[in-house]
């Protein structure tokens, strides 16, 4: 049994990945457990990839599939531009993630594990490759480990798109008629879990559920990795116990502790007004504001910046990242981005743009094959609520000072072909 302090996942950080020997020295040997699924259930671990779905329930669903061959997929695609936690984790403790994947494989009876890292991250790809080699040399009998490197896109990390890529080399989300839906590679059912989730499983397998619940709240036990960007000294990944007040999290990351608002959950998440900064960082505490911690992303927006202009840049990029399979997403998101632009940039008719924006959000919601358009709609709506003051001044024809500033806070990759966005 190990002591119950932070960091858990990032223990032993030394600027380069821990080797297998160092890893086992730090965390002890990952012995098999007969009652692993019960332990996972008791731990109350929820997925850290965005949906916060109970990991044990997902694993049980897959265990109950009667197939000879099954897959565990470790999702380290990290499509969110503001997220850095999975690559930090894989550059620190890659073996912990692999341990977790092996535990999950033993639960569901999988013979194959596919670790997916975006190929645009060569350093992380190298770390994982080396870790897999190290394990192969020890020739443990266990599931086969494979590394896959799909190209990086926002939706490529969506689980059905990822499985589609493994199955057929297409990073496109699939249409699912009912949920939960069992994704398949060929005929083999697939369990997809985020890399951080796997790392937690690796620790629960060693130290047990009681240890895991030693940090965090009753409903959100354990710790979580957070990527803090925006008004922060430097973009930071840190590990916090769930339930830590948000302001403490900002403090610890060296961010502006008196911001205007923070974006939680990613670019498909929600803005949270600074008035709620004393709320604990946990799903159940943030639910009244409609916010969830998602994949552990915090974008800090300082006072004086224009929330509408920041949202516009994100929506524009998200529109460009649409997989363009579904009409409402392919046409709707660029239209929303344009409306927001007209609202933010002192155009001739800000009121018309605002009204179109609200109507289009209602029209688009729930009509894509995946949640990509819903996320954008959620973010836009929360921006209109939280920055209501800014919206009013834009509507009155007096854009706020921040909207003409050239300093940006939410990091958005540059569009290769910005003109492609115009679809009409």
């Amino acid at each position, binding site marked *: 049994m190990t002591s119950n302090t932070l960091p858990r996942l990032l223990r032993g950080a030394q600027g380069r990945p821990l080797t297998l020997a160092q890893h086992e020295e730090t965390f002890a040997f990952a012995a098999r457990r007969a009652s692993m699924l019960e332990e996972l259930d008791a731990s109350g671990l929820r997925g850290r990839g965005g949906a916060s779905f109970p990991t044990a329930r997902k694993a049980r669903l897959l265990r109950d599939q009667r197939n000879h061959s099954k897959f565990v997929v470790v999702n380290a695609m990290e499509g969110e531009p503001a997220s850095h936690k999975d690559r930090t984790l894989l550059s620190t403790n890659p073996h912990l993630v692999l341990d977790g994947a092996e535990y999950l494989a033993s639960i569901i009876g999988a013979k194959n594990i596919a670790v997916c890292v975006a190929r645009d991250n060569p350093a992380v790809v190298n770390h994982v490759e080396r870790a897999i080699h190290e394990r192969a040399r020890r020739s443990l009998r266990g599931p086969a480990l494979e590394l896959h490197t799909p190209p990086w896109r926002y939706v490529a990390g969506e689980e059905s798109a990822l499985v589609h890529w493994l199955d057929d080399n297409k990073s*496109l989300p*699939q*249409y699912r*008629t009912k949920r939960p839906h069992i994704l398949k590679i060929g005929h083999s059912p697939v369990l997809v879990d985020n890399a951080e989730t796997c790392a937690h499983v690796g620790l629960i397998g060693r130290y047990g559920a009681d240890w895991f619940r030693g940090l965090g709240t009753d409903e959100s036990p354990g710790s979580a990795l957070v990527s803090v960007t925006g008004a922060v000294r430097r973009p930071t990944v840190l590990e916090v116990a769930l339930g830590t007040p948000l302001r403490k999290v900002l403090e610890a990351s060296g961010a502006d502790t008196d911001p205007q608002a923070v974006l939680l959950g990613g670019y498909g998440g929600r803005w949270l007004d600074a008035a709620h900064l004393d709320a604990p960082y946990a799903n159940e505490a943030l639910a009244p504001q409609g916010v969830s911690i998602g994949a552990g992303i915090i974008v800090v927006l300082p006072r004086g910046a224009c929330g509408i202009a920041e949202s516009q840049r994100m929506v524009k990029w998200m529109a460009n990242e649409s997989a363009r*399979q*579904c*009409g*409402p*997403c392919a*046409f*709707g998101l660029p*239209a929303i981005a344009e409306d927001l632009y007209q609202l933010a940039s002192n155009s001739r008719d800000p009121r018309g743009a605002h009204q179109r924006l609200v109507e289009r959000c209602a*029209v688009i919601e*729930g*009509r*894509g*094959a995946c949640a990509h358009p819903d996320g954008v709609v959620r973010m836009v709506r929360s921006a209109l609520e939280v920055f209501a003051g800014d919206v009013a001044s834009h509507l009155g024809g007096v854009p706020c000072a921040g909207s003409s500033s050239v300093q940006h806070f939410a990091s958005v990759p540059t569009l290769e072909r910005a003109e492609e966005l115009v679809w009409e």
Partner: protein
Amino acid sequence: MGMRRRSGGFLLRVNPILCDGFGHCHELAPELVTTDEWGYPIISPTPVPLANMSALESARYAVRGCPRQALRIERLSEPA
């Protein structure tokens, strides 16, 4: 049997990936399907009772008439 089938509701559902947005379904089942500004179908998410024979009939027309076979009728067991 006949009685049991009448008791539930149904939903017309579209697979947005297959749908091409030419809006034939809107013409075949105008009471169930409207279109958005880009021509893609908007289907009301509230279930229609199966007892509403004319709505069910037009839903079937739309399913059969969809050139991409993107539509299907989903039966819901609980009464609408």
